[in-house]
């Protein structure tokens, strides 16, 4: 939003380059973590569109992620393994759902929005839990094969799959970046700041929120598609509020309203949690303390604070 962010794409480019080279240096386990970071980073970015830019903290973002994933899993169960079909449906079904739910939840705002989204999210969680014939119930669906793109390389190979995710990740970054810096994106920020003023200025604020909700849902669905391909498995747990809570934390830690910050947030949470919990059973204490320290010392999230520092360093406004 600020001018200082105009240099951002350069950093983004460098980061992408690093992401491109990293797999060559990482252990297989490291690579699998990195793949997850990309998937969750994408998921968190999509939520940031809602949280950071539109000012709507949604507690059912996992719904769209999970529905995208279930779509792919169910298609696979039907023997439909075409990647492009799964991709298209894995995005459009969450989008359709967002079109529907958006009509119902966007009447509320603030904490009420938080809770009505929670309510719908949990209903869909319960549905996945109970509708055993389609969803496999709480046992979930397993055995989803990696996608076959008709390319000479197998996606079962971790590196190949990683690069596939990376391509889509980069593409999504680009689209989201463009979106946020378009007139529409700026207008969405305006809605966050003052809805009544935006209306007086001739903007259809409800429409803007609705649009943002749907776009965010679509990208969450995309993340879900890769998630299920990566794990080969999906269960209702991924639709639960705990999952939504996790991404919310990723967004906050990385810095809401910084778009790429949440990717860093996702990286921090996934990597730290894995490192710490492998070393001690007391990982929740450690994570808890890290969260608390983040709040007390990094006001605007990791990336937000870094940007602030840079701004200070340059000594102008």
């Amino acid at each position, binding site marked *: 939003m600020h001018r200082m962010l105009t240099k951002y794409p350069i950093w983004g480019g460098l980061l992408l380059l690093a992401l491109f080279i990293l797999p060559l240096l990482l252990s297989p386990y490291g690579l699998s973590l990195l793949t*997850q970071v990309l998937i969750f980073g994408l998921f968190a970015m999509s939520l940031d569109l809602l949280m950071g830019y539109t000012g709507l903290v949604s507690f059912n973002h996992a719904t769209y992620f999970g529905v995208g994933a279930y779509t792919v899993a169910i298609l696979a169960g039907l023997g439909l393994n075409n990647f492009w079909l799964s991709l298209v449906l894995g995005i459009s079904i969450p989008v359709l759902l967002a079109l529907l739910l958006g009509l119902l939840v966007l009447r509320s705002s603030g904490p009420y929005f938080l809770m009505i989204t929670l309510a719908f999210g949990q209903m869909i969680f319960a549905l996945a839990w109970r509708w055993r014939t389609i969803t496999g*119930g709480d*046992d979930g669906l397993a055995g989803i094969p990696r996608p076959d793109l008709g390319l000479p390389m197998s996606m079962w190979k971790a590196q190949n799959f990683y690069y596939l995710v990376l391509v889509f990740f980069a593409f999504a970054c680009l689209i989201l970046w463009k979106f946020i810096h378009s007139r529409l994106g700026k207008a969405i920020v305006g809605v966050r700041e003052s809805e009544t003023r935006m209306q007086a200025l001739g903007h259809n604020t409800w429409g803007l929120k609705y649009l943002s909700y749907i776009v965010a849902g679509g990208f969450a669905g995309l993340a879900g598609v890769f998630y299920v391909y990566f794990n*080969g*498995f999906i269960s209702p747990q991924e639709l639960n509020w705990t999952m939504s809570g996790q991404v919310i934390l990723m967004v906050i830690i990385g810095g809401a309203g910084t778009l790429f910050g949440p990717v860093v947030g996702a990286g921090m949470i996934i990597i730290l949690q*894995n490192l710490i919990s*492998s070393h001690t059973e007391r*990982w*929740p204490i450690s994570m808890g303390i890290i969260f608390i320290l983040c709040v007390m010392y990094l006001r605007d999230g990791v990336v937000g604070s870094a940007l602030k520092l840079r701004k200070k360093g340059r000594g102008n406004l």
Partner: protein
Amino acid sequence: CGTQVDNSKDPIKVGLLVPYTGVFTSNGVDITRGVELYLNEVGYKAGGRDIKLIKEDSQMDGQVGLQKTRRLVESEKINILAGVVSSTVAYAIRDYVVANKVPFIISNAGACDLTREKGSEYIFRVSFSNGQYEYPEGNYVYNKLNVRKVVVMAPDYAAGHEKADGFMAGFKAQGGQIVQEIYPKLGTTDYGPYLTQIKNADAVWVHFSAADSIKFVKQYAEYGLKNKLPLLSSGDLVDESSLLGQGDSAIGIISALHYSAALTNPENQKFVKDYTAKYGEGPNMFAEQGYVTAKVIVKGIEAAGGKVSDSKLLLDSIRKVQFDAPRGPFKFDAKTQNVIFNTYIRKTEKINGKLVNTVVETIPNTADDWYKGK
């Protein structure tokens, strides 16, 4: 992993994946204690090699469990995986484990398919398949307790349904009648509205575990049903760790399980004594399952002469393991690699001021084969 060269100086790595957070924390802890108790007994050695136990918290979440399994396999390069309390986690990691050819000893997760349709030569289960001991219980209550009409209650999740199915199949096979089935949600706080509805039955059969089991048993008594309708259950309801919280409300409950801390065979007496000495409280089924898990692993490695990299040899050796466990005779069903055990019908009683599950009947050699008759 199977391609590794066997360097017999290196320790054999065993991964243990159980929950250390969430509602089923205590099960994870109990299993770990059982495992460590046995490994201590053998000095963390088997087949002449050291054993290194690497513990991971599954958080009762399939995704997390899979991630942890990846770490164990890819980063730690474990030779054997053990543990897993929740069936969801077991299903989530099943394909990965099989694809990576890691022998997997299930210490608790009861989902039937894990040793049926989704069975694999890499998967062993030392605990139970859902319904395995509930089915004979169904027979028992019809024949020996003359119960004819039963209300069935279990939490609304896969294990709850499978266990209830096992019981109902056993009960109906003898001519019993199910008057009502109720599946409250997992983690229900208030069972009052359900208890108020129960009518026209000879008894109530339930499966609840952990915190739910305490809430349910206390509320069952509060609503005055304890003295009206006998409470029958799968053994989880009156797990030794729940009895303390349930108090006298638990007295008189009939349950079925492959274990009771009150068993009097020498192996169990030693187990209870050692366990209590080490941890300051008595063992329960989970502790015993952990203990047996470790013993299966150690015996298997020994039979394979420590050559864990020879996977065929190792799997064969594990499959053939047999010994006297605290629960009684232990062996695998060679076809499914699921355990065959004695089913104990127990009655919760207060003896010397302490609640125990006294064994009232032993049904030997229970395999997971009841469904075949369906």
